[in-house]
């Protein structure tokens, strides 16, 4: 793994460790993501990849090590942390749209309350984003009235509305029916093409091949491989990765 200068990296993790009780879920993680880079994190269940993703905006706390975003170290709880989180977009496996608010309100809440935009501007921007992810028609509906794929695209729009420096995707298609996975991946591929910095935890190897600049393979809380997608998929170095890929390819 090449270690880049910290100033060069938009997201930098250095010597990060975390336990869940006895389980050492993140073992001495070092990872640098440059501006505009799309990094796909793959690995078997329980390998710590979701925890890694959630630690980057401190939805999970870490025990030792350092995480910094755009050169700024992640602050402790409080106002400063909230400010930093506004720069980090997050898309969850279970969408987590605000159930009591309309689609439009879901997207405008952050810009109005956190960025103090006026309502008209926020709504105009939100509509443009909703159009872009293909759910403009649904703006006045409640989240439960939309399909899973539509909800996840709204969740992406909600994160984009904050104009984040980096987007985190925590298994964004794992809760979706197969026919809805592509509509979400299409939006993500588009986003990658536009130069968004993205860290994507996923089981979608097709997306990794198509859109990733780097593939990070995790197993048992460690980063085992960090390579370009074609290198990783055609010539994995470790036995752990070979084993993982062979299981995938049989289906």
């Amino acid at each position, binding site marked *: 793994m090449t270690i880049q200068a910290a100033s060069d990296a938009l997201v930098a993790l250095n010597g990060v460790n975390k336990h869940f009780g006895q389980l050492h879920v993140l073992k001495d993680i070092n990872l640098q993501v440059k501006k505009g880079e799309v990094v796909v994190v793959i690995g078997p269940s329980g390998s710590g990849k979701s925890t890694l993703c959630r630690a980057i905006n401190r*939805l999970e706390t870490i025990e030792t090590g350092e995480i910094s975003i755009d050169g700024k170290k992640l602050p402790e709880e*409080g106002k400063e942390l*909230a400010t*930093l989180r506004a720069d980090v*977009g*997050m898309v969850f496996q279970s969408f*987590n749209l*605000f159930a*009591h608010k309309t689609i439009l309100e879901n997207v405008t809440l*952050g810009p109005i309350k956190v960025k103090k935009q006026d309502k008209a501007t926020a709504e105009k921007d939100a509509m443009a984003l909703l159009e872009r992810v293909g759910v403009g028609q649904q703006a006045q509906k409640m989240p439960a009235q939309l399909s899973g794929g539509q909800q996840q695209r709204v969740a992406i729009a909600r994160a984009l509305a904050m104009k984040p420096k980096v987007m985190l995707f925590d298994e964004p298609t794992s809760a979706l029916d197969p026919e809805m996975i592509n509509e979400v991946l299409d939006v993500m591929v588009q986003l990658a093409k536009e130069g968004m910095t993205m860290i994507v935890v996923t089981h979608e190897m097709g997306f990794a091949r198509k859109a990733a600049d780097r593939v990070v393979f995790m197993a048992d809380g460690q980063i085992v491989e960090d390579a370009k997608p074609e290198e990783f998929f055609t010539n994995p170095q470790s036995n752990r990765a070979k084993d993982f890929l062979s299981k995938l390819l049989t289906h």
Partner: protein
Amino acid sequence: MNTLLNNSDLFITGFRNTIILFIVAGIGSLILGTIVAALRVSPIPAMRAAATLYINVVRNTPLTLVLFFFALGYPKLGLVEIDFMTAAAVGLTLYTATYVAEAVRSGINTVPVGQAEAARAIGLPFAQTLTLVILPQAFRAVIPPMFSVFIALLKNTTVAAGFSVPEAGSIRANLSERGEPQMAGLLWVALIFVLLVFMLSYAQRKLEKKWKVVR
């Protein structure tokens, strides 16, 4: 019917004070109870401990004792002097707020943790995560128990009668002084309470329909 009509002054004063106590203590306990519930889920341990202590002490004390304190104990503390009506309103608010707080807290527990994570992820601080995302959904989930608390409050206002507040619970004593049949008077009081509670139940049904959260 004569008992009611001939003593309408008593009934009107009595129920007017009951309704004033109910509205003042209702709004007061809704605000205080929500704040206490928020403290109970706050990330700061000292705040959680203070809220838990308050709930456990006041909720475990009989309402009569709480009102006794304000009628008899409080004046001896030499603080701002308050009349019996205000004292009753304060006592009822402090007492009812503990029940409101527990109802709100159970509502907070029904909101999926992902809602709070999503709110924090877009940069909302704790207070706004609570007021904009969690509490609106929590309230919608606890309308039935919340209304039970308020129906209990409405009836609890009669305890204040024992402390020289001329509200609905004191109508019987006054009727007795006027030589009116007490049983008829009591039945009228009960009937009016039933009507008031019906109005609350009606409001509850309306709110439940209007505020349904679909997941």
